[in-house]
């Protein structure tokens, strides 16, 4: 995709338009949608975040950073940040490592490849809400198949979905496991296409030199796959920071068994603006989310530049 962009820029001025405004017709619908639903909201959310006491009614009392100080001292938003970070920094690495292993296996000469592709990619197209209901049943403390399996090796039963005495230690684990399962299909697809773009010449040369398959994996596959791995990590981190749907199926839309223990950043933003009508605070929180996403994207882009082969 990046290489295509670099294809020789067309020098053509040869396009003939019968009327001066004709080019406009093609870009107008695109531009209208972009202005109303992307550019205006970006500007507006920044302005809103600096309007103190800004609610849906539109009344506010001055400009300042009140919303930001509120948000960054709010105990639920801080716990939402913490939960989101825990989610991102467990789900993304685990899903990435598992996906590298599976993509590598899928890249071997094997029979029944279309069966395996279907099995590994299918969760990408199905809604997290719908399949989440099945996971909720699997995680059930009394009748769940996961606790039955754990019982076989003498663990549990674990109360994945519940809370006792005001603590719900396993709720996060539930969402993390579900998140990994949800993230893997997309990650495997990207990594597999990265593997397929590696020139087979490298492997042939390595085999001629008598390299073992683990050496080939470490010395050829991993370095040449590195750009793709970084790409998937960036994209997955961005989407993981916006985690919301993965929490919904397990507690009928509540943020965890206690109702507040599993706030994520997007969940908190949605509740603050939609249920509490505190637009300014929600806007400030969404700017915080954006800055975090931007920060990690920049770090990864930087590392990628340094390690590009």
């Amino acid at each position: 995709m990046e290489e295509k962009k670099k294809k020789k820029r067309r020098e053509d001025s040869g396009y003939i338009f019968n009327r001066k405004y004709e080019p406009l017709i093609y870009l107008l619908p695109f531009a209208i949608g972009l202005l109303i639903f992307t550019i205006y909201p970006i500007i507006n959310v920044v302005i809103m975040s600096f309007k103190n006491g800004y609610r849906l009614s539109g009344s506010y009392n001055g400009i300042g950073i009140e919303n930001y100080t509120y948000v960054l001292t709010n105990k639920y938003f801080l716990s939402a940040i913490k939960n989101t970070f825990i989610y991102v920094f467990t789900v993304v690495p685990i899903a990435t490592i598992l996906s590298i292993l599976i993509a590598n296996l899928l890249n071997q000469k094997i029979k029944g490849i279309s069966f395996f592709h279907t099995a590994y990619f299918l969760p990408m197209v199905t809604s997290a809400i719908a399949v989440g209901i099945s996971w909720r049943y699997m995680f059930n403390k009394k009748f769940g198949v996961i606790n039955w399996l754990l019982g076989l090796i003498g663990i549990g039963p674990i109360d994945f979905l519940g809370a006792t005495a005001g603590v719900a230690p396993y709720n996060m684990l539930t969402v993390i496991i579900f998140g990994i399962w949800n993230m893997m299909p997309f990650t495997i697809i990207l990594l597999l296409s990265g593997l397929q773009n590696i020139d087979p010449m490298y492997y042939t040369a390595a085999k001629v030199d008598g390299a073992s398959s683990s050496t080939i994996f470490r010395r050829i596959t991993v370095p040449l796959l590195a750009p793709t791995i970084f790409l998937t990590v960036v994209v997955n981190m961005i989407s993981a920071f916006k985690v919301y749907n993965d929490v919904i199926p397990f507690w009928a839309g509540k943020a965890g068994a206690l109702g507040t223990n599993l706030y994520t950043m997007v969940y908190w933003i949605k509740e603050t603006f939609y249920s509490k009508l505190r637009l300014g605070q929600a806007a400030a929180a969404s700017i915080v989310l954006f800055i975090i996403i931007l920060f990690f994207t920049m770090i990864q882009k930087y590392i990628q530049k340094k390690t590009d082969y």
Partner: protein
Amino acid sequence: MAKDWIKKFFIYLFLTIGAVVMMFPFYWMISSSVKTAAEYNSFPPVWIPKNWLDFSNFVKAFQAAPFATYFLNSIIVTGSSVLLTGFITILGAFGFSRLKFPGKTILFSFLVAFMMVPFEMLVITNYQTVSKLNWIDTHYVLVIPFMTSIFYTYILKNFFDTIPDSLYYSARIDGASNWKYLWRVMVPIAKPSLVTIMLLNAISSWNSFMWPQLVINSDRFRTVPFGLFAFMSDAGSDTQLQLAAATVSVLPMIVLFLFARKYIVSGVARGGVKG
């Protein structure tokens, strides 16, 4: 060679275990959707329900909540979104690929940077906009805010860029207008890219949850995932019934995937962005 044989064995073993883990939630959803209450509540779990053809859970679910309406809404919304976004994307990609205007390259790189802004950040303002337009509880509200997609336009523009200009000149000599050239020549050539875009759009539109949750209040306009969520949060609905409804709700996407897997996978691999 014996060593190769062992290696092959482990590859298949690991791949099979992984495939079972990935597919299991689907098996569990489908098998549990035909379980009786006793089978559902038994421990150890019932792996294979006794009566596979007992569809009473499905009937009960469809009686308990207007799932037929939810499906109709999802079909209307997904269908119109695919057509409208597809149309605007074709025009926009043609514009960016073929028209000459000052600042085009800079403008386009700005657009690519906008792709990084999460929709969640725009949601507050977009909610206000659609409320002012009185679009709450309509079909428009689930379609029009998504009519411009930078991501799809980007994919299609890159494809249009690879179509040689010689085709354009011969079409012009034959008397075709730009409009005709776009629809008669470029669009047919770009069909694989277009199909991919439309499939990704259909998937994200069908599965969209948070936005409908905000802008739809009335039962009449709920789409499938949101309807399913409402049904699930209702006190007193049995999980078997929820699983029956969930099974039906993912079926269209599973069928789509089985028929168009290559297009979907190639689109995801090329774009590096989810739907």
